């Protein structure tokens, strides 16, 4: 396979799965022109006047949608690791003898290990989405027929809007829906919160199938997915395991080292002056992130500071801040626990958002760049602040990108990470896979100290004399090399690209190689 060196100095293929690619040109450099992709014209004359689009089963819906070999089928990760719909969908596709599907999920979870047999037998040709856990390992061993394509949530919207990916059939698992196809995730036995990730699919796919285990009488109001975009509705017994769809309660980490990292992040926001009246931040649901939100909350109360908005992944902890008036709004991208789901349903200031509002490269602006500070994780960061979030230092692909790349555009991007995990260094000479260019990454917070990107002279100045353990990234690296030893590079087959990393604009940022 012929590889081209892109503007970030990484080698990427010119063609992926027979589609011509554009190598990464630099941040904000690639701006396609022309018109966005057009959805297929449909006429209401073809749909029942009584609004009842319920078909007898999923197979019937797929048949009516004209399922054929080589089609692109999309699913969404609202049900997280509790999802049984996707696995069931491919059981049905297999039973129909269909081959070479391009699976286009918004993310995959370990529960989708079930699909490995369909990758083996050719039912699925390749995945464009995320390859988590077992699917990632499978991909890393070079077993997938096509090349995996990893995109951010914003990049997924971009790829639909500029025509790079055309979805033939979107299957939207919906915790509550009516027979017309109006659907929502905020209620029902399998409630997951919101369905924002399926928005683009519902608008652009040729055929949209809503699958629900809670069919209600029209109108399912308020709705998140509009029935007017939906072709068929299928009722099944259960969308999945509610305990794995949202956790009853999200747990704050008990690890003393992660708590220390969280404390440093909160102290950094406070002492750098970012934490002030009317500010905004984003925090996810990882253990460190939850703890960070709690420490920040303590500091906000102490200094009587109120945020304008917090961007979720919402959890009980953010919901409490909303209730206590510490923030005016939660702009929520996904809901991680039952308190989050309830709040979204009941509190008008808990707003549901989508990749369109928050991340889309072809939007006329997006929320991610308006956030004062975002706290993220990473699997690796290198001396130039470049970061990796998909592969580990042994070369294995184990995670998707999610909204991570999109969030890098915030005014202050903080990676809160341990400096090493079980002898595996997190701070390295050069990242195994480039997912986030260093120029967008401002601060690295580890248990061994805080490294600020030398480009951010303003931040360096702001925390001078603060008592925070500010060090250079090289100093932290030296410290962990003394502890762990200098690692050997992973043994990768540089002739065999198993997956590619897209930048938010659709260009190719890096390649993932087969592990030997």
């Amino acid at each position, binding site marked *: 396979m012929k590889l081209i060196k892109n503007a970030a100095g990484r080698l990427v293929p010119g063609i992926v799965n027979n589609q011509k690619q554009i190598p990464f040109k630099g941040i904000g450099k690639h701006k396609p022109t022309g018109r966005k992709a057009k959805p297929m014209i449909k006429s209401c004359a073809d749909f029942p006047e009584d609004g009842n689009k319920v078909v007898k089963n999923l197979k019937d819906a797929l048949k009516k949608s004209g399922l054929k070999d080589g089609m692109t089928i999309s699913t969404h990760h609202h049900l997280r690791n509790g999802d049984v719909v996707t696995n069931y969908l491919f059981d049905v596709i297999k039973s129909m003898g269909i081959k070479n599907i391009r699976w286009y999920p918004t993310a995959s979870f370990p529960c989708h290990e079930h699909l490995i047999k369909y990758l083996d037998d050719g039912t699925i040709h390749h995945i464009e989405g995320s390859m988590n856990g077992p699917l990632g390992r499978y991909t890393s061993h070079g077993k997938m027929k096509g090349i995996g394509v990893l995109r951010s949530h914003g990049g997924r919207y971009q790829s639909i809007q500029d025509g790079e990916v055309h979805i033939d059939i979107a299957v939207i698992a919906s915790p509550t829906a009516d027979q017309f196809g109006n659907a929502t995730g905020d209620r029902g036995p399998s409630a997951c919160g919101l369905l924002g990730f399926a928005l683009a699919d519902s608008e652009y796919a040729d055929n949209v199938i809503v699958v629900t285990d809670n069919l209600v009488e029209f109108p399912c109001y308020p709705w998140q997915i509009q029935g007017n975009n939906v072709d068929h509705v299928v009722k099944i017994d259960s969308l999945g395991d509610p305990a794995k769809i949202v956790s009853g309660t999200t747990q704050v980490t008990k690890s*003393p*080292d992660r*708590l220390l990292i969280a404390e440093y992040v909160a102290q950094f926001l406070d002492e750098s002056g970012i934490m002030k009246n009317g500010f905004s931040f984003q925090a996810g649901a990882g253990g460190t992130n939850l703890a960070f939100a709690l420490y920040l909350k303590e500091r906000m109360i102490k200094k009587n500071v109120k945020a304008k908005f917090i961007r979720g992944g919402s959890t009980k902890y953010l919901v409490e801040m909303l209730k206590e008036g510490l923030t005016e709004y939660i702009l929520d991208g996904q809901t991680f626990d039952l308190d989050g789901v309830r709040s979204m349903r009941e509190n008008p200031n808990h707003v549901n958002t989508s990749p369109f509002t928050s991340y889309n490269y072809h939007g006329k602006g997006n929320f991610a760049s308006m956030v004062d500070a975002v706290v993220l994780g990473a699997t690796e960061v290198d001396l130039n602040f470049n970061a990796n979030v998909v592969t580990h230092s042994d070369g294995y692909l184990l995670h998707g990108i999610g909204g991570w790349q999109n969030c890098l555009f915030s005014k202050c991007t903080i990676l809160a990470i341990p400096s090493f995990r*079980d*002898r*595996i260094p997190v701070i390295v000479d050069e990242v195994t896979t480039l997912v986030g260019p260093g120029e967008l990454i401002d601060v690295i917070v580890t*248990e061994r100290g805080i490294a600020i990107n030398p480009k951010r002279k303003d931040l360096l100045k702001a925390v001078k004399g603060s008592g925070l353990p500010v060090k250079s990234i090289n100093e932290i690296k030296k410290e962990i090399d*003394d502890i762990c030893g200098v690692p*050997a590079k*992973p043994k990768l087959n540089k002739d065999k690209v198993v997956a590619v990393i897209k930048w938010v604009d659709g260009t190719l940022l890096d390649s993932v190689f087969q592990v030997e």
Partner: protein
Amino acid sequence: MKNKITKSFAGKRGDKIKSDCYIELKKKSAGGIKLKLESKVSSMYGSQIEDLIFDMCRSFRLRHAEIIINDFGALPFVIAARFESAVRRSEPEFNCEYLLEISKKNKYKSSKERMRRSRLYLPGNEPKFYPNAGLHQPDGIILDLEDSVAHSEKDSAQILVRNALRSVDFYKAERMVRINQLPKGLDDLKFIVPHNVHVILIPKCESAEQINLVEEEIGRLKSKHKIKNDIFFMPIIESALGVINSFDIASASNMNCALAVGLEDYTADIGVQRTDEGKESLWARSMIINSAKAAGIQAIDTVYSDVTNMEGLHESVIEAKMLGFEGKGCIHPRQIKVVHEAFAPTSEEIDKAKKIVMAFEEAEAKGIGVVSIGSKMIDAPVVKRARKIVKLAENNNLLSKNWREEN
């Protein structure tokens, strides 16, 4: 050779094991060294691990063996300790040591008077807690060979603790080891004395004689290994007899730096339940404080065992401080900050201490012998206490080190 065991093992394995390894050793009479390594970090560190094991085999003159390693991200000092334990277990009379180079970062000294507000206990056979322990900034870390180590692992903990003292950076925390109850504890000393230990905690101490025994053995080891650095003792009083003899114990050696109390064993010894209120141990604690102060050393309180209750911990430190204790044991890193904050002087105490120190320094500069603030005379002990408070305040970031200029 008698007592020769051909198969031995050391370390830990299982799904939940992190930063440790399991090593199985089968000695053979021919065939050279055969090493089978399974490691989650083999692509990064496989060859470094192999080099280490082969070097140890050469050093131990081990020529023919099958070695199986299941590694869960163990650091080199852990792998070396586990392999040495396996070799020792295969040959009870084995007496070689494989010493990794002592890290330059570990060569700092301690002093008898240094602050000992917090000391963090680290189980002597649990290496995963070591590399980051110092980051939580305890005044001291304790590598524990006593209660936290299962009886069957006492031998491997000695080796692991020895390696940790040489290799692990504890970030300037005072380096302490709790040995086993005597006489077993005397055997522990040879694994720690030559490796820059600062303080030895002597558990369940009941007589001055026990201190003398430890001091003698340390003296012997120090001259054998040509060790110059001071090694201080912190006897722990954990019985009625120990409380009664506490002054003798506290004054038994010039190397005693502090006297600590252990209440779990003490309350069991006097046959009562340990309560939060602590009435049952008030007399013992006061006795220990007075014995320590009479001998001119620090008094250190027991641990607070509910790691989730930070308010309870705070209250317990305030009470300890009120009684006269200067330090508290910690069993979780999150307790350290709470302990330091609670031991920190209040702003009224700091203001008063600043005034006293300033007045004293002014008088000294002018050559005046007698110092007074207002109508109150200030004598030496008052100045000493004030200086201590100022230092505590500086160490807790409650007072700038340049406070004299800023005043």
